[in-house]
């Protein structure tokens, strides 16, 4: 290597762009935190990963790959390690059969008479199709998630609109109030609803004290409680994207509509609502997707007949101890969630293309 090349390589190594420096710093912090917090093996794994990333960067830069690609490489690597690899593992388990062993599923390749033979099958997926339980659990999950999303939209839209139209100091305070519940654990907030909804809880106590009812209402362990829990928990995810969209709405458009003789209601439905569609879509996705796989809320607030796919998954994994069928259930659910996202995304892209 010539002296000039050495110089360039040396200069390159120390003249890292800021985003890369920040990323490296975060990676090293992550490794240090992992080393302190994680058990031995996991810490070594994490340390190894971070080291591999840093080495890959060094090699990449030496090979003259542009920084832009290197920056993109980090999220890609993240997705690969924490999404794609687990997904492939899940897919692989779903092709096996359950057995009493460790790990509790059959190997994918078996030593046959003439070498290794592929022993996987789609039997578990067939099993899901044969038993109507799974279809009704998927449908019921989608129904509960869709209804909750609609309710969250109906409640969240006026709230977001009101916040977006509020004058400044008040607007920030209102936004803060929307985010405030996140400072308490999600689990604790769902537990708090148990205290509110129970037979001798706050709500029944108040209603009986005012004389509106004379027998306590059974609200806990009903579908009502599940809807309430989901809408309550995910409402901020609806409000925030809607707010971000509505706050950018150009007031001049509303004035123009008014000048042209449109009533406020007509203006809302022909100007505000169509323009806020990207916010509605983003908010709906953020509510719908976590709601469909929700396990904790129906487990704590729901009744015995609240059938959701999260619970079915739990049963397959822990009660039937059938990891392969559980994996198949999870993969089918992933596709059920991914398809609507892709559809919504394409709608959104068309919207943006049209503007």
């Amino acid at each position, binding site marked *: 290597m010539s002296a000039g090349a050495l110089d360039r390589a040396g200069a390159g*190594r120390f003249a890292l762009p800021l985003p890369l420096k920040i990323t490296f710093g975060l990676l090293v912090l992550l490794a240090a935190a992992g080393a302190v917090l994680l058990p031995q093996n996991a810490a070594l794994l994490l340390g190894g990963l971070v080291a591999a990333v840093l080495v890959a960067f060094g090699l990449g830069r030496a090979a003259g790959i542009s920084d832009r690609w290197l920056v993109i490489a980090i999220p890609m690597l993240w997705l690969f390690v924490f999404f794609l690899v687990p997904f492939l593992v899940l897919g692989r388990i779903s092709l096996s059969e359950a057995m009493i062993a460790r790990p509790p599923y059959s190997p994918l390749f078996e030593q046959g008479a003439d070498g290794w033979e592929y022993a996987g099958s789609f039997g578990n997926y067939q099993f899901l199709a044969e038993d109507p339980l799974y279809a009704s*659990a998927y449908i019921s999950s989608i129904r509960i998630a869709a209804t909750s999303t609609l309710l969250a939209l109906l409640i969240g839209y006026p709230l977001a609109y009101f916040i977006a139209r509020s004058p400044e100091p008040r607007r920030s305070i209102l936004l803060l109030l929307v985010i405030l519940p996140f400072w308490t654990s999600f689990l604790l907030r769902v537990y708090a609803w148990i205290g509110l909804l129970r037979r001798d809880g706050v709500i029944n106590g108040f209603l009986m004290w005012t004389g509106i009812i004379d027998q306590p209402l059974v609200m806990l362990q009903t579908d009502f409680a599940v809807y309430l829990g989901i809408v309550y928990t995910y409402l901020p995810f609806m409000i925030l994207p809607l707010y971000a969209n509505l706050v950018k709405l150009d007031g001049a458009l509303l004035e123009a509509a008014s000048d042209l003789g449109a009533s406020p209601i007509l203006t809302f439905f022909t100007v505000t609502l169509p323009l806020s569609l990207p916010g509605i879509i983003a908010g709906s996705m953020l509510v719908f997707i976590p709601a469909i796989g929700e396990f904790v809320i129906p487990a704590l607030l729901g009744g015995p007949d609240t059938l959701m796919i999260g619970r079915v998954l739990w*049963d397959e994994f822990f009660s039937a101890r059938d990891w392969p069928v559980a994996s198949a259930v999870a993969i089918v659910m992933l596709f059920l969630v991914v398809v609507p996202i892709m559809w919504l995304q394409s709608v959104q892209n068309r919207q943006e293309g049209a503007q």
Partner: protein
Amino acid sequence: MTKLKLAVSFAALAAATPALAEGELRLFIWSDYITDAAIERFEAETGIDVTVDVYDSNETLEARLLAGSTGFDIVVPTGNFMARQIAAGVHQPLNKDMLPNLSNMDPALMERSARFDAGNEHSTIYMWGTTGIGYNIDAIAERLGADYEVNSWDLVFNPETAAKVADCGISFLDSADEMLPPALAYLGLNPESRETADLEAAAELLGSVREHVRYFHSSQYISDLANGETCVAVGFSGDVFQAAARAEEAGQGVNVWYAIPQEGAQVWFDMLVIPADAPNVENAHRFINYLMEPDVIAEITNYVWYANANRPSWPLVDEEITSDPAIFPTEEVMAKLFTSVTADSRTDRTMTRLWTTVRTGQ
């Protein structure tokens, strides 16, 4: 600069790697299931450093055991779970030469627990109890009359009786393994049967009372019984006693008690076992032997209110506990208790599916 940071992070890694000292023992046990005093005494006597981690469900424990190495030296699964784990090769056989205190164990109980582990080759009993009915004394008297005695599964499995108490809240354990066998017993079938037709009949019985069941959950009933949110729970003996103690502490006039139904009830055993890949096998044996010392286990029973299987320890246990037939059943009741084992995947699947039908009506 990058190199320096890298060096720092690796130094941090090295520092965090725990030294595997000779005198170590890692115990993975149910929450609130052993006394600090017992651990401290063992540490003082042997110089072994004991780390205790806790879990709150057999499922959690089992998922960790089946996934791979856990690093634990002793775990305490319930019998039916342990049977599957042994079949999966998760646990190692005990070296009985290192466990002279095994002679303290009650032969009749050990014979029962051998149903889960042939010859008790891998395990010994830690605590045991029954799955029966916990109830709110006053709420039942109010609805079924002051002279109604809770002594039968009829209270929860007969739709007519269940309907009368449904308004104050009935809860069932959320587990096919715990609920199907008593339903079989109530129907007069063999509670240990795993024939599909029998299981279906049991599931049908449970389905017929489903509308009267407020919820299916395996621990929620402890607090709900204690504060009067529900009035009848099919539950584990020790959990119901915990509810009774909490109700008494709260002083809100809620009186909870427990009954072993006359048709018979399921006995469960929490077993001490050593995982196959335990790092400190010798220390694990020493600790298990220590837990079979009569005075040690008697002290723990006095704290957790569960029966142990250590005969010479019974005179050392508080009279209040040993004289309670709900904790130490009489010979007559003992004869009616059953132990059921499910150790094949097909039956697991059938029972889980039937249970989903019971729970959701689907």
